[in-house]
């Protein structure tokens, strides 16, 4: 991925300066983060219902 500008110097930076800028990686990171949230809700719900099992 690397530095998103042609020269590895902060003096040429005039805009976005995060890791992945200029590539498809921000979208990949966003998608992974969304999947993490969905997975936590899915497995969290399963775990929660397991705990309720003893108190039905």
């Amino acid at each position, binding site marked *: 991925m690397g530095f998103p500008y042609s020269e590895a110097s902060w003096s040429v*930076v*005039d*805009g*976005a*300066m*995060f890791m992945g*800028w200029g590539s*498809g990686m*921000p*979208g990949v*990171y*966003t*998608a992974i*983060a*969304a999947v993490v*949230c969905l997975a936590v*809700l899915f497995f*969290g*719900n399963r775990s*929660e*219902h397991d*705990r*309720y099992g*003893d*108190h*039905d």
Partner: protein
Amino acid sequence: MEEQLAELAAQVAALQAGGGVTNTMFAETYYFLSIPLMVLIHAGFLAYEMGASRMKNVLSSGVKNLLAFAFIMPTFYFFGWWVYWAFPTGFTLSEGPAAISGAGYANAIAWGWGESAQYMGPNIADQASGVFWAAFAMFAATTASIMSGAVIERIQTVGFVILAIVLGSFAWVVAAAWGWHADGWLVTQWGVHDFGAAGLVHAVAGFFALGVLINLGPRIGKFNADGSANHIPGHNMPFTVVGLMMIIVGFFGFLMACVIVPGEAWSWFGDKPSTIYGTPITLSALGFNILMAVGGGIIGAWVVTRDPFWMMSGALAGIISVASGLDLYYPALTFIIAVSAGLLLKPAADFLENRGIDDAVGAVTVHGTIGLYGVVMLGIFGAGFPALQGAAGEVPTISLIGQIVGAVVFFLLGFVPGYVVSLLLKAMGMLRVPEGAERAGLDTVKVPAQGYPEGIPASNPASR
């Protein structure tokens, strides 16, 4: 002579550049500082609802509140911010007259991928997007916290988090797009004015909670067979009352974030602050009116209840009742309206309770009912004031009809999704905890920690 003029021009240019840097840093700092103040709202809600819970549920209530905050942040990043910019003109997602709305505009600035990602992360050329996003994310989390207290002691955690996401990252955002954004159709067509979000944050969240409460049902033991209600006291009223005071502190951050500072490319003016509608406002106006509202609300509630819980709820109600017009009210009028809100509070809460609604902290009343009351009050007292920046005759004015239309829309934007989504969760078995778990206490069932390992002594309450 020419050399001196050139030198002078260079010095003026340097001064202008320096002034611009200072202004930009001030603007960024201004909104940045509103963020931790708004975090105090959540600290307050956390203490508030944990205190209002019985000891057997105290940590479970806290976990629920923390998760709402945690899930609002990424989901507001994923799509909530996009909704705010895409929806102002309605469900058509078309561009409005100010040309800063619609799906095209939102696609360009509010997605976390592609070219628009430059506005959704660190960018040396953009000192505004992040602080605006964060301030709005805190508004979003506030809505979830408002709902959170109402449903304590019997709602499932994941079901609640899903509801919080729907409310915080969609429902209220649509209300903000319609009633706050300069291209919002409620603003441009009806002159709706809701400076401090009495309707689009508080009422939406309060009535969302009502929709959920109808499907969730009351806590075991709340109502007797004949329909009469029992009071279920929380385990720690001091905790609750201090939490409410922390919310008041946080409101200063909430309301300062509603002001648009001058001098930036995105500002309405170069030389004076404005509301989000481009109408003039000063922080001094907020200084006068917020404190007069807090005092009025406490006094009104004290007259009716003598109860510190309702007195502090009255402080919230006082602010919410005048939030729509904090930029315009005269302080003494603010006080009068806030007193009336404090007086209304307990009877309005009793009205709901008498209809079988178990709102554990009075959130529907404080935020929902009083929020709409505040929106309508501005229509009575503020009629004729221009609702938006622009030439006379070209911009809508505040009116009672317009404010009532806004109130109805805010009610529906809260109640309908709250009712429908909670009904779906109920059908999927994800809304209410089993009876056995509720009786045992949710901390025992699912929290691997103890709130009070050594116990705390209790005292008998004074008679009224």
